[in-house]
C-alpha cells in the first residue's frame, strides 16, 4: 500500500460504503473524488463536480469570506478541521452540514490534497427543536440535571411552578428546589441515582416536597429518567404538583377511618359484657381493626364475655371464619370468653359444609340468647371470684 494510486483506490472503495458524503480534493480545493452519499446529500453527480472547486456548495456569504481557505488552512495546520454550517444543494435548497476536513499527504510527506466529510445534521437540529417544543409543552415541570447536580435546562412549567426565571435556575444545583431540611439527604440520593440510573419514580411511597423561590413548599411527585447525551449522562426530572391529589387522598383516608369507626362499634351491653355487631363483609383490614378495637375495650372495661353478632354478615366463607376465629383467639388470650350470635340456618349449613372448625366457640341463634348465656357466664365467674377471694382472705387470716 505504499503506492499512492493503491491508497487512493482503497479510499474510494471505502468512500462508496459510508453514508456520509465524502469528497477528495486536490491541494487547491478542486474536487477529484465524490462518493454516492455526497450525490445523495447535495444533488450533484460526481461528473458534475469533479474538476470544480468544492466551494460550489457554499452560500454566497461563505464564498465572500473565503471559507474554503479557512477550511483548508485550518485542516493543514492542525491535521483536522471541524465546522458546522449551512450548505447549498444543486437545486438551491439549503441544509445544515457538519463538516470535517483532513489533509492527505504523499509518501514523502508533501500535501497531496484533502478529504472532506459532510454530514447532514438538519434532522438533528429538527430533533432538537422538537425536543424543545415537547419540553415546553409538557404538562409537568421538567428539569434536566447534569451529574454534578447542576440544572442545565428547565421548561416553562418549571418556571411557573417554582417562581424562578430559567436564567436564575440554570447552573444552580437542583437542591435549590428542595426544602432545606431535605437537601443533605437529596444530594446523597442524587449521587446514587447517577450511579445506577434507570427510569423510575423518585421516592416511592415517600411524600416529596419542592420549595418555591418565595420559600413556600409544595407536595410533588417526581419521575426520573436518564438521558445519555453528547455532553454525558444527564437526568430528566418530571415534576408534578400534587397538592390537590394529596388533599384528596387525605380526605379519602379520613372518610375511610370514619366509616371504619362506624362499622366496628363495640358496645357494652351489660357489666363486663361486650357486643360486637358485625355488619357487611369482613376483609382482613377490617377484621384487624375490629380485633384491635375489641381488645382495647376488653382491657378498658375489664370485660369477661364478648358477643360477636354476625347476623349482619351476608356470607360466612372460610376467610371470614378465619378472621372471626383469630378475633376469638385474641380475646381468649386476654381472658375473655366469646359467644357467636346471629347464626342463621344457612350460615350454619355453610360453616359445616365448608368444614370450618370453630373449635369450642359457643354459638347462639339470636342476640337475646347469646346475652342470656353471657350473663350466666358472668354470674358463674363472679361467684367463683368471691369464693376465690374468700379463700385468699381465709389463707391470709
Amino acid at each position: 500500500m505504499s503506492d499512492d494510486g493503491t491508497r487512493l483506490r482503497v479510499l474510494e472503495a471505502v468512500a462508496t460504503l459510508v453514508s456520509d458524503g465524502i469528497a477528495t480534493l486536490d491541494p487547491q480545493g478542486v474536487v477529484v473524488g465524490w462518493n454516492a452519499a455526497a450525490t445523495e446529500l447535495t444533488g450533484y453527480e460526481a461528473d458534475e463536480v469533479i474538476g470544480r472547486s468544492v466551494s460550489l456548495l457554499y452560500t454566497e456569504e461563505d464564498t465572500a469570506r473565503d471559507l474554503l481557505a479557512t477550511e483548508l488552512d485550518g485542516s493543514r495546520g492542525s491535521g483536522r478541521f471541524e465546522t458546522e454550517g449551512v450548505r447549498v444543494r444543486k437545486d438551491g435548497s439549503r441544509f445544515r452540514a457538519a463538516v470535517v476536513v483532513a489533509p492527505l499527504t504523499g509518501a514523502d510527506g508533501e500535501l497531496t490534497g484533502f478529504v472532506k466529510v459532510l454530514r447532514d445534521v438538519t434532522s438533528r437540529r429538527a430533533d432538537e427543536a422538537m425536543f424543545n417544543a415537547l419540553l415546553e409543552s409538557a404538562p409537568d415541570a421538567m428539569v434536566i440535571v447534569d451529574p454534578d447536580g447542576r440544572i442545565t435546562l428547565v421548561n416553562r412549567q418549571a418556571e411557573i411552578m417554582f417562581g424562578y426565571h430559567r436564567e436564575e435556575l440554570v447552573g444552580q444545583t437542583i437542591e435549590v428546589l428542595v426544602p432545606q431540611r431535605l437537601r443533605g439527604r437529596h444530594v446523597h440520593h442524587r449521587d446514587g441515582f447517577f450511579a445506577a440510573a434507570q427510569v423510575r419514580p423518585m421516592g416511592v411511597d415517600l411524600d416529596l416536597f419542592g420549595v418555591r423561590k418565595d420559600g413556600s413548599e409544595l407536595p410533588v411527585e417526581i419521575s426520573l429518567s436518564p438521558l445519555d447525551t453528547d455532553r454525558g449522562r444527564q437526568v430528566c426530572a418530571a415534576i408534578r404538583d400534587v397538592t390537590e391529589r394529596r388533599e384528596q387522598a387525605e380526605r379519602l383516608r379520613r372518610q375511610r377511618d370514619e366509616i371504619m369507626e362506624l362499622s366496628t362499634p363495640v358496645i357494652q351491653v351489660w357489666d363486663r359484657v361486650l357486643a360486637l355487631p358485625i355488619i357487611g363483609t369482613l376483609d382482613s383490614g377490617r377484621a384487624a381493626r375490629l380485633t384491635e378495637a375489641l381488645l382495647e375495650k376488653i382491657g378498658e372495661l375489664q370485660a369477661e364475655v364478648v358477643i360477636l353478632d354476625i347476623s349482619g354478615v351476608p356470607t360466612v366463607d372460610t376467610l371470614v371464619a378465619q378472621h372471626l376465629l383469630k378475633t376469638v383467639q385474641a380475646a381468649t388470650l386476654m381472658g375473655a370468653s366469646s359467644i357467636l350470635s346471629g347464626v342463621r340456618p344457612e350460615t350454619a349449613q355453610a360453616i359445616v359444609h365448608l368444614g370450618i372448625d370453630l373449635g369450642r366457640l359457643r354459638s347462639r341463634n339470636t342476640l337475646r340468647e347469646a346475652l342470656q348465656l353471657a350473663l350466666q357466664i358472668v354470674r358463674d365467674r363472679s361467684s367463683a371470684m368471691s369464693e376465690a377471694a374468700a379463700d385468699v382472705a381465709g389463707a391470709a387470716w
Partner: protein
Amino acid sequence: MSETLPILKIGDTLLVALQGDLDDAAVVRIEEQLTQEVARVHAAGVLIDVSGLTVVDSFIARVLARVVAMIRLLGAQTVVVGISPAVAITLVELGVPMGHLDTALNAEQGLALLRRLRAAADHGSDR
C-alpha cells in the same frame, strides 16, 4: 431477670410475675424454681403474670407451654394473666398455638378461673 424468682404464696396458690427479658438461663431458672416451689408447698394453682415482660413472642409462648405442662404433671393448674391487646394480636397473627393456655384478664379473674379449673379437675371433667 434477677437470680431468684419472686414467688408469692396465697393459700394454696402461687403467684409469679415474670419481668424484663427472658434468656435461656432465665427460662431454666423459672422452670427449676417454679416446679420445686409447687412441689414443696403442694400448690393447687399457679398464676403467672406476663404483663411485665418486654416481649412476648413465640419463644415465650413455648416457654409458657412447657411450664404449664410441668406444673400439670405436679398436679396443679396454671392460669396466665396480663396479656395485652398488642401481644394477643401478635401471638394470633404469628399463629402460635395457645389453645392449651388458660388465660384471664387480671389477677382477680385469674384466681377465680383457677378455682373453676380446680373444681372441674376434681369432678373429672375438662373445664
